[in-house]
C-alpha cells in the first residue's frame, strides 16, 4: 500500500529522471501523463476528422496536408474508400476511448481524487502506473494498426459483425485484430484505474471527510468507475469472441457458421451506453466544482445530484437497445427500451436544473474556467434534448444512421469532453503545474471553440433530417444528397475553423507551462482539499493529514466575514490567498 511505497522510495528528490517522470508511481505525475497522452490523441483524432470532412465536402480530391500518407493508404493525398472507412472508425474509437476517458478519468481522476480526499497517493500506486502504461501501449497498438496490409479497422467504431468478424468483408486483417487488442488494453487499463479510484475513495479519506462531504467530482469519478467496471465485462467477452471469429474460424457472430450477428450488437451496446455516462459524469463533475467557486455559492442540491446521477447510472444499464430500434431485433422489445431511454432524461434534467439554480442568486465572475463551464451547460442541453428524438422509436426509424445522430452525440460528447475538459484544465492547471494559464488566450480559445463548434454541428442536424446517411464516402453518388453538398462544404470549412481555434490553446498551454504567472496555493479561493495542498504539490501531497470540518461548497455562509470556508479549517480563512 501507499505508505510502504513512499517509505520504500524515500523522497522524490532521490529518484532519478526515469523514476520521477517516466515510470512514476506518483498519482500527480501519472495524471499528467494521461493528460499529455489524451491531448496528443485528440490531435490525432482531430486530424482524422479533417481528412474525413475534406473527403465528404470535395470527394476524391487531394486533401491538403495528406500528401505524406504513403500508398496504398492514400494516393497523393486522395483518400480511397477503405481509408475513409478506417478514418471514420478510428476517429470514433480514439476520441471516445483514447481521449475522453484518459482526459476526464485518467488525468483528472488520478490527479484529483487523492488530493480532494486528503490522501497521500492512490491506494495502489504501482497498479496506477501500470494502468497508464497499459493504455499507452494500447495507443501505440491503435496507431500501429494503420501500417498493416489492408489498413486499420474499418467497420465503424461500433465494429458491427459480421463486417468486423471476417477479414474478407473489409480487407483489413491485422489492422482490425490490433484494433481489438488496443481496445482490450484500454479496457484493462481502466479496470485497474477503476479499482484504484474506488479503493482509494472508500479507504483513504481524511478524518472528517464523510462520503457526503466528498466533492462531487470524486462522486462522479467513482460512479463512472463503477458503471465502467460493471458494463465492460460483456464487451471484453464479445471482443475475445470476435477475435476468435477473425483468427481461428469460430462463428459466434457469423450466421453461416451458426452464430448471430445481433449478439455482437447486444454485447457492444450493453457496454456502449453505460460507457457514454462513464465519459459524461467526470466532465459534469468538473462543472460541479467550478460553478460554486465562481458563483460564490453552494452547489444547489448536492445530495439530489448524487442520487440523480446514480439513478441515471442504473438506468443506463437498461437502455442499450435504443441503438438497435431498426436492427431487426424483436419489435416488441422496442417500446420498453424507448420508454427507459426517454425516462433517463429526468435525472439529467434534475442535474441541469441544479446547475441553473446554482447560478441563481450567485455573485458570478467569468474567468476562462467558468466560461467553459457555462459553455458546456448551454451546448450540452442541445445534446440532451436531441436525444429525445433518437429515443423516440418512430422518429428513430427515419433518423437512425443519419447525420442527425452524428450531430446529437457530438453535442453530448464534445461539450463534455472538450468544453468540460478544458474548463477543468484551465481550472486545475495552477495546481497541476504551479502556474496560471493566460486569460486572454483562454477567452479567445473559448469563444472561437464555442462558435465554431455550433456552426459545424447545427447544420449537421438539418442534413440528417434531409436523410443524409452517415459514413458515406462520396455523397455525390446519390441524387437526393447532391443539393446538400454546399452545406457539407460549409460544415467542412467550419470544422477547419474549429481545429484552428485550438491553436490559441496549444500556445497557451505550453507558454503557461514554462512562462505563466506563478500560482499561489489557492488562486480561486476554493474550498476543497486539493487547494489546501501546497503548490507545486510535493510527493506525498500534504505536509500533515488534513482534518475536514465542512462540506465542500460552503461559500457565502451567513455571518461569515469572507465568502468561503475551506473544508480543512474549523473557522473561516484567516487570509485571502
Amino acid at each position, binding site marked *: 500500500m501507499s505508505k510502504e511505497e513512499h517509505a520504500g522510495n524515500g523522497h522524490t528528490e532521490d529518484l532519478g529522471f526515469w523514476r520521477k517522470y517516466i515510470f512514476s508511481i506518483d498519482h500527480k505525475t501519472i495524471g499528467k501523463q494521461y493528460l499529455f497522452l489524451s491531448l496528443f490523441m485528440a490531435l490525432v483524432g482531430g486530424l482524422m476528422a479533417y481528412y474525413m470532412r475534406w473527403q465528404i465536402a470535395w470527394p476524391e480530391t487531394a486533401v491538403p496536408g495528406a500528401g505524406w500518407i504513403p500508398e496504398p493508404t492514400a494516393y497523393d493525398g486522395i483518400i480511397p*474508400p477503405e481509408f475513409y*472507412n478506417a478514418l471514420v472508425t478510428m476517429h470514433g474509437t480514439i476520441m471516445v476511448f483514447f481521449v475522453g476517458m484518459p482526459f476526464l478519468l485518467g488525468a483528472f481522476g488520478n490527479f484529483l481524487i487523492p488530493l480532494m480526499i486528503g490522501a497521500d497517493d492512490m491506494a495502489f500506486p504501482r497498479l496506477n502506473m501500470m494502468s497508464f502504461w497499459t493504455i499507452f501501449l494500447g495507443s501505440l497498438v491503435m496507431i500501429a494498426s494503420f501500417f498493416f496490409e489492408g489498413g486499420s479497422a*474499418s467497420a465503424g467504431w461500433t465494429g*458491427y459483425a*459480421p*463486417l468486423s468478424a471476417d477479414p474478407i*468483408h*473489409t480487407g483489413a486483417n491485422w489492422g482490425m485484430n490490433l484494433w481489438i487488442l488496443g481496445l482490450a488494453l484500454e479496457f484493462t487499463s481502466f479496470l485497474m484505474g477503476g479499482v484504484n479510484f474506488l479503493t482509494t475513495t472508500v479507504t483513504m479519506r481524511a478524518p472528517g471527510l464523510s462520503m457526503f462531504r466528498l466533492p462531487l467530482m470524486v462522486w462522479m469519478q467513482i460512479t463512472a468507475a463503477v458503471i465502467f467496471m460493471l458494463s465492460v465485462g460483456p464487451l471484453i467477452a464479445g471482443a475475445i469472441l470476435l477475435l476468435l471469429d477473425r483468427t481461428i474460424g469460430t462463428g459466434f457472430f*457469423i*450466421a453461416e457458421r451458426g452464430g448471430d*450477428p*445481433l449478439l455482437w450488437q447486444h454485447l457492444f451496446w450493453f457496454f456502449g451506453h453505460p460507457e457514454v455516462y462513464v465519459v459524461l459524469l467526470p466532465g459534469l463533475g468538473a462543472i460541479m466544482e467550478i460553478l460554486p467557486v465562481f458563483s*460564490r*455559492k453552494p452547489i*444547489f*442540491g*448536492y445530495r*439530489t445530484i448524487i442520487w440523480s446521477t446514480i439513478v441515471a447510472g442504473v438506468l443506463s444499464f437498461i437502455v442499450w437497445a435504443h441503438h438497435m430500434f*431498426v436492427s*431487426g431485433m424483436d*419489435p416488441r422489445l*422496442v417500446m420498453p427500451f*424507448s420508454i427507459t431511454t*426517454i*425516462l433517463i*432524461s*429526468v435525472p439529467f*434534467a434534475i442535474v441541469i*436544473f441544479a446547475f*441553473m439554480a446554482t*447560478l441563481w*442568486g*450567485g*455573485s*458570478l465572475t*467569468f474567468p476562462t474556467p467558468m466560461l467553459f463551464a457555462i459553455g458546456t451547460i*448551454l451546448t450540452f*442541453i442541445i445534446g440532451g434534448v436531441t436525444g*429525445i*428524438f433518437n429515443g*423516440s422509436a*418512430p*422518429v428513430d*426509424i*427515419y433518423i*437512425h*444512421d*443519419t447525420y442527425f445522430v452524428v450531430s446529437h452525440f457530438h453535442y453530448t460528447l464534445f461539450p463534455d469532453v472538450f468544453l468540460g475538459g478544458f474548463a477543468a484544465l484551465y481550472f486545475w492547471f495552477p495546481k497541476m503545474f504551479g502556474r496560471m494559464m493566460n486569460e486572454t488566450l483562454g477567452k479567445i480559445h473559448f469563444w472561437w471553440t464555442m462558435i465554431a463548434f455550433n456552426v459545424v454541428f447545427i447544420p449537421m442536424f438539418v442534413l440528417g*433530417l*434531409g*436523410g443524409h*446517411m452517415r459514413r*458515406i*464516402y462520396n*455523397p455525390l453518388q*446519390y441524387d*437526393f444528397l447532391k443539393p446538400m453538398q454546399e452545406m457539407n462544404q460549409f460544415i467542412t470549412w467550419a470544422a477547419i475553423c474549429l481545429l484552428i481555434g485550438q491553436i490559441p490553446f496549444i500556445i497557451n498551454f505550453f507558454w503557461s507551462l514554462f512562462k505563466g504567472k506563478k500560482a499561489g496555493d489557492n488562486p480561486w479561493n476554493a474550498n476543497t482539499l486539493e487547494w489546501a495542498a501546497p503548490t507545486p504539490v510535493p510527493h506525498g501531497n500534504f505536509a500533515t493529514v488534513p482534518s475536514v470540518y465542512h462540506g465542500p461548497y460552503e461559500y*457565502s*455562509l451567513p455571518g461569515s466575514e469572507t*465568502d468561503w470556508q475551506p473544508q480543512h479549517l474549523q473557522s473561516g480563512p484567516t487570509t485571502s490567498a
Partner: protein
Amino acid sequence: MLDWFPKNISTFGAEIDHVFYLIFYIVGIGFLVGEALIVYFLFRYRRRDGQKARYVDGETWAQSAWILIPAVIVLVLDLWIDFAGAKAYEAVKGDTPVAEVVVQMGSKQFNWIITYPGPDGTFGTPDDMVKENDLHVPINKVVKLLLTSEDVIHSFFVPVLRLKQDILPGREIESWFEATETGTYEIACAELCGYGHYTMRGFLHVHSDEDYAAWLAKSWPAPEAEPAAE
C-alpha cells in the same frame, strides 16, 4: 411547417413526421426557456458591489422543489412523447397488413438483389425474376419486403418512405410500405457495409396501376403467363 424533410410518399410517413414535430415543439420550448433563463442569470447575478451571493444549498424539500417540480414536468412530457410515439411505431413496424405484392429484397456487397415471384405468386419457381437494384411496385398497394443478406449487415433505407430496416445475414426480416405517389426514388444502404458502401444505391419505381400492368406484361411475356390482372 418547417421544410427539413424530403417529401413523404408512404402511408405511415406522415405519422413519423408528426411525432417528430410534436417532440420538436415540446423540447424546442423547453430548450429556449432553459437557455434564456441561464443567460438571464448570467447577467442578473454577475458580480456587483454590494450584492452578496445567497447561501442556498437546495438541501431542504422546499428548496429542491424548485428543481424537482420542473423534473416532474419533464417526466410528464416524456410519457406524452412515448405514448404518441408508440402508435406511430406500431404502424410502421407492427404486423404487416395483408400484402398485395411480395418481393424478396436480397442484398450483398454492394448491390440489391431483388427477386419477384412472377405470375404464380410463389418464390422458387421458374418464373421468378431477379433484378439488380430496381424495385418496381404499384401505387397504393401494400408491398411486403422479405429482406435478406448474403454477407454482412445492410440497411434498406428509402428517405421518402421514412422507412429504414437493417438486414441481418442468416435471417429473413419482414418489412412493408404502401407508396402514395408515383415516381422513381433512391434506395440507400444506411449501414456501413464495406468499402463500396456508398455505391450501394438502388431505385424504387412506384408505378400507376396502368404502368404497373404494362411492366408486368413486359417482364413476363411468356405465353403461359397469365394476363396481368389485378
